[in-house]
């Protein structure tokens, strides 16, 4: 925090300082221009004050000469008067103009000048001097105006460096005209000028010069006693300053920044002309000096700022510590909560500032967290209790299903079933048992919901099924009864689809009724599976009374009835294709073990497992009933389906063979007429064998085989009786009335008439009689 506060405040402070410095510098610069101007004016005028009276004096003498026109003998007196009057004047002369047109006119120029405290004389009219050619004389003579000379060394005269103020004077000519008479002068020694400059004060400026106008003999005098500015003392710089000053004068400027730096410093220049002498006062000031005041101010502000920042830092540290100490303490106590201790004590922060607010909030958080954790623990306990109860419910539900062990298996059939609930407890169920009349009752159902309510409803259904089914009710009546009981008081509006079958284990007759359930599949001996033709009624629990329709069909020994719930057919593959009854039928026909438990397992493996081809989102139930009378074996043969029925050589044994054959042929949709032919054939042939058996004391073994191909029924009768070829007997003479014939041989005659082919052989100690009948009888002529 401290860092950030400083990081922000320091740049702001620096910017403020910079702006203040700039403003001060600007103000100082403006002030300096004003000061420089004033100083230059002041310096110039202090010199002018001295020089102006001299000019006035000389001009007065010139006027007197014109008015009085004294004789030249009096000139020295007047000259000495000038020297006496103005001690600053070095020397003076009155030089007379030589007029060619006046005879007797000759050069005359007495010159008096100071030498030490005395006044010396020199005659400028001497040939060697020749004043009339000299500059100081010629300018005044030519311009007829008072004029200051540029500095020059007065050789032969004053013998020193000087400047001369020359004023022309006149006299009246013969025609009263104004005639130029000569020049009166006053010299100022440059030494005096130098001293006068030295006596001036520079004020805040570094350097200043008194400079003569540009000429061959330029002269510069330092103003002030010291020349503190080294660079300013350099001759080159003096030249630069002087040139620049002339430029400034030319454009009327008095204060400006030099175009180039002096000793690396931007430098200001101030210039001012004297009013008397055409000389300039030049002042030089480096910007540094000008801004030194501003810098001093800046330095003070910097120190003050630094001190302020230091104070700020200390203050912030103290305040921050005041805030962070309780926050650290809070954080420390909250850290103990990470270890699961929600009884941590929060430090007693009572202040009403943000920290106090935070502490109150944390305290609330801790308390609500504690409450939440406690509630969560309670709900977890309740959940696990519920889970436990569900577990028990599931096991109770499983126990309501018949066990698949051999004790529950009927003698003439094998039953297998599986139920995979989508949740712990499901709404599907299956049941099977042998009722009191010896029939196998089986049912599969699907309650309209899942979970506990469905399980309870399912329990009622199975209970009723057991009680009512045991009394030998036909399935359609059974469903109607259960429906009537469940509709009454079905406030939960639950319903269940049930498929219920009663299979007569002695003859393969199936009675089946459906309450809104999927039709079962019949898997034949050859592996093909077909839906059973059924009529379905309303699901149980919806309406009452309902008359359910009874469907009857024969199941061939070896066939397997497969009942299932829609959890199987509605299971979806990963690309959302439903399994469907067709796929289920193909699945049942796949090669491999064909016993009911293998078939059930195959279905469950395909739809009821997490990694299966199809994923079931509902309960999955499969029940398979395989009719398997002990006396009958079946298999798939190259030519078709094959059955072998071991017969007991007795009238009842014959009947039983007939029943199984009827079941086989009816299950394969053989016409009733053909079935009657087969029944008759069987009876006629077996009756003979039984008769034989009776005569031999009951030791004959008989078996009837049935091979069902696409177009024919082939029955093979094998018996261990003594070799006997029934075909060897001559057929009865039908022309003769039966009343006159011997009774006997009628049976075999009927058989031969019915069959399309009959063949006898004796093989492996067995009489083998093979009877072939077309599936569809061909009308044949019966001999009259």
């Amino acid at each position, binding site marked *: 925090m401290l860092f950030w506060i400083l990081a922000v405040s320091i740049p702001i402070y620096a910017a403020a300082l910079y702006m203040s410095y700039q403003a001060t510098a600007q103000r100082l610069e403006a002030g300096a221009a004003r000061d420089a101007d004033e100083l230059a004016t002041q310096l110039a005028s202090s010199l002018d004050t001295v020089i102006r009276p001299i000019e006035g004096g000389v001009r007065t003498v010139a006027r007197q000469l014109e008015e009085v026109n004294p004789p030249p003998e009096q000139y020295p007196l007047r000259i000495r008067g000038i020297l006496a009057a103005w001690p600053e004047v070095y020397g003076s002369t009155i030089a007379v103009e030589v007029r060619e047109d006046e005879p007797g006119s000759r050069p005359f120029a007495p010159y008096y000048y100071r030498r030490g405290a005395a006044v010396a004389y020199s005659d400028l009219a001497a040939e060697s001097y020749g004043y009339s050619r000299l500059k100081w004389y010629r300018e005044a003579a030519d311009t007829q105006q008072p004029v200051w000379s540029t500095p020059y060394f007065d050789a032969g005269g004053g013998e020193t460096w000087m400047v001369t103020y020359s004023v022309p004077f006149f006299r009246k000519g013969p025609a009263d005209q104004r005639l130029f008479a000569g020049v009166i002068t006053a010299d100022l020694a440059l030494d005096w000028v130098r001293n006068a400059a030295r006596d001036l004060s520079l004020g805040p400026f570094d350097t200043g010069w008194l400079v003569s106008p540009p000429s061959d003999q330029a002269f510069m005098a330092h103003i002030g006693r010291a020349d503190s500015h080294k660079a300013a003392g350099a001759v080159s710089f003096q030249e630069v300053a002087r040139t620049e000053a002339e430029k400034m004068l030319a454009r009327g400027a008095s204060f400006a920044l030099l175009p180039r730096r002096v000793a690396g410093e931007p430098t200001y220049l101030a210039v001012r002309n004297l009013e008397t002498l055409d000389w300039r006062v030049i002042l030089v000031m480096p910007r540094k000096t000008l801004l030194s005041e501003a810098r001093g101010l800046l330095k003070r502000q910097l120190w003050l700022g630094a001190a302020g920042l230091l104070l700020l830092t200390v203050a912030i540290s103290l305040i921050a510590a005041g805030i962070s100490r309780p926050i650290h303490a809070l954080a420390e106590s909250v850290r103990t909560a990470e270890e699961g201790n929600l009884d941590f004590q929060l430090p007693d922060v009572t202040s009403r500032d943000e920290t106090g607010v935070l502490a109150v909030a944390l305290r609330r958080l801790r308390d609500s967290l504690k409450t939440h954790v406690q509630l969560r623990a309670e709900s977890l306990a309740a959940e696990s209790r519920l889970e436990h109860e569900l577990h028990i419910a599931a096991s109770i539900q499983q126990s309501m299903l018949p066990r698949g062990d051999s004790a529950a298996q009927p003698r003439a059939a094998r039953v297998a079933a599986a139920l995979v609930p989508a949740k712990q407890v499901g709404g599907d169920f299956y049941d099977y048992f042998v009722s009191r009349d010896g029939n196998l009752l089986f049912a599969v159902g699907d309650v309209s919901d899942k979970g506990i309510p469905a399980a309870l409803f399912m329990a009622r259904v199975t209970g009723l099924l057991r009680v009512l089914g045991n009394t030998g009710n036909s399935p359609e009546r059974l469903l109607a009864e259960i429906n009537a009981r469940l509709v009454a008081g079905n406030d939960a509006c639950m319903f269940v689809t049930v498929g219920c079958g009663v299979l007569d284990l002695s003859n393969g007759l199936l009675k089946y009724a459906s309450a809104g359930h999927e039709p079962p599949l019949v898997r034949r001996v050859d592996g093909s599976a077909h839906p059973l033709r059924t009529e379905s009624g309303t699901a149980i629990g919806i309406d009452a009374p309902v008359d359910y329709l009874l469907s009857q069909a024969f199941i061939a020994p070896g066939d397997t009835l497969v009942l299932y719930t829609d959890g199987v057919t509605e299971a979806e593959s990963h690309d959302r294709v439903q399994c469907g009854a067709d796929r289920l039928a193909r699945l049942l026909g796949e090669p491999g073990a064909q016993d009911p438990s293998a078939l059930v397992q195959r279905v469950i493996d395909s739809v009821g497992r997490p990694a299966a081809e199809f994923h079931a989102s509902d309960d999955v139930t499969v029940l398979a009933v395989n009719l398997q009378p002990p006396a009958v074996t079946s298999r798939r043969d190259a030519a078709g389906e094959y059955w072998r029925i071991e017969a007991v050589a007795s009238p009842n044994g014959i009947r039983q063979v007939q029943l199984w054959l009827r079941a086989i042929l009816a299950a394969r949709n053989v016409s009733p007429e053909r079935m009657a032919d087969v029944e*008759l054939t069987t009876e006629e042939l077996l*009756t003979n064998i039984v008769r034989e058996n009776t005569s031999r004391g009951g030791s004959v073994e008989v078996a009837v085989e049935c091979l069902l191909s696409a177009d024919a029924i082939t029955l093979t009768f094998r018996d261990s009786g003594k070799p006997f070829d029934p075909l060897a007997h001559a057929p009865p003479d*039908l022309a003769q009335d039966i009343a006159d014939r011997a009774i006997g041989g009628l049976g075999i005659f*009927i058989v031969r008439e019915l069959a399309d082919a009959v063949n006898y052989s004796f093989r492996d100690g067995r009489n083998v009689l093979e009877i072939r009948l077309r599936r569809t009888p061909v009308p044949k002529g019966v001999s009259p």
Partner: protein
Amino acid sequence: MSLKILLEQENPPVIALEGRLDSNTAPDLDRMLDRVLAKKGIPRIVFQLGDLDYLSSAGIRCFVRARKAIEPHGGKVAIVNPQPGVQKVLDIVKAIPAGGVFKSVAELDAYLDEMQRKVREGE
């Protein structure tokens, strides 16, 4: 599945058969015939087969036995209303002579009336 034998009329006997007439049940019919044939001079025996589902050679023997018992004395055996399966068996073995099978009782009655008229005319 067995045989029900109903003696609908004593004289002349009308026997209705219901169910299966096969080697198992033929002895039952034989016992009934024993009783019926004990009387002499029976003009005819009528078998009502409308409810007979099944007939095997054993049953045919019963009919043949009845014929053998009464035909020598001018008696006749009439079969009424056999189902197709039964008719087929009867046809195969020609157990009943032509004119001995009637579709219904009415047809039989009409036949009998005709016979009586012929007898009267012959007298």
